[in-house]
């Protein structure tokens, strides 16, 4: 009785491929040179942006005054790039979460922000963000990498020519 070669070749091919593909999956998809932390502290600040600045005003030679809360002092350089004159801190939330776990927080206006930290080391952090509106519609879905000492800003337009800015910062927690 002669055995056909096709089923056996396919079996061995699938077996070897499975072994080589499951090895990196077991190790995880974090960068090998990073030292991961198990717990991270995520800080989310919701900032209301008002008093929009038109393009004409921004191009004018007169200086534009930007007013922001004291708690937003570390973001003044970034917020000054937005076409708004006033920035107010609406809420500040801090969550201690485990790495690679999905979490969600509620924002003041009924919106929600789901996130999942992918990795965090001394220098960089990878974060998946999913920003949803109050009715559940998607505002932003992205995956970003930024410095662990910096805050990543994202915002959207709101009614009455206002805007909502989210300042997200991740920091490691010593175990």
């Amino acid at each position, binding site marked *: 009785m002669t055995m056909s070669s096709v089923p056996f070749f396919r079996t061995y091919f699938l077996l070897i491929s499975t072994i080589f593909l499951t090895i990196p999956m077991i190790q995880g998809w974090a960068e090998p040179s990073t030292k991961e932390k198990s717990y991270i502290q995520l800080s989310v600040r919701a900032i209301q942006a008002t008093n929009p600045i038109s393009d004409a005003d921004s191009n004018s030679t007169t200086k534009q005054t930007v007013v922001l809360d004291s708690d937003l002092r570390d973001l003044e350089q970034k917020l000054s790039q937005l076409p708004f004159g006033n920035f107010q801190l609406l809420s500040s939330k801090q969550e201690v979460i485990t790495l690679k776990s999905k979490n969600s927080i509620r924002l003041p206006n009924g919106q929600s922000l789901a996130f999942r930290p992918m990795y965090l080391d001394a220098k960089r952090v990878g974060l998946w963000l999913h920003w949803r509106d109050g009715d559940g519609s998607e505002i932003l879905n992205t995956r*970003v990498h930024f410095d662990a000492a910096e805050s990543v800003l994202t915002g959207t337009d709101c009614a009455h020519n206002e805007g909502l800015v989210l300042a997200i910062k991740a920091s490691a927690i010593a175990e």
Partner: protein
Amino acid sequence: MVAEKQINKSSMGSSPLSERNEFLLSQFHDGECSALSALAARVLLAVSKDAREFLAELREISSQCSQHGDSLSAESVSLWSRVEARINQEEQAAFYLGTRQITQPKDSTFQTWGARHIILGGVSGAALASLVITVAYQPARLVTFSAPSAPQIAQPRMVQPVAIQRSSSGSNRYRIRSARPRTTLEVDWMRANGSLKLIPDQNGSSAIIWVRRRALRTMARQLPSHVGPTPLSISTATPVNNKKGIGVKNKEVTR
């Protein structure tokens, strides 16, 4: 013609030898028994007279056969003609059918065939797996996104002048130094309900991701704003009646 002379058992009388003993003596005569059997045969010959007579008959028959064999060899049929005929037959068959080849005895079909395919499948699978791993686990790259409705979009990662400096060790390695700090924000992918706008900061190393929603719905609930000291604790801001109130101005930034 081999002279046939059977051992007439009747001439010897009733032989008490059993078939087993006769077989033993035959083996002993032919030298085909073991040492133990030979010992048993000698004992039997020493004890039994019939055994000795039987053995003597065997030797006589054997001598007669050998004499006849010599005579037959002279009269034996020559087989050379048959061999020659067979050789001619083989040559004719080789002419029409090809030379007869002696094939080596094959090993186990499974062993040779399986070993070859195991190696081939393993090498192919390893090559494919390494290719998939190399492609799938590339480091994150910055996705440059441009919104057509925003003409003033500046990409956070621009072409920067670089300086190429030769390594101090004298080797052929070169060190590339960028004139501007590296990008701190990297985006794998983005999806939004509207156009996306990347607003770079002053350094150009990071950017603000701004979503310009297509249909800005009339929000039933306005954004709450607070009046009074800015809360520092971890809590959500409580909405106030003054929807358009402006918070405490603690610092002014001149743009």
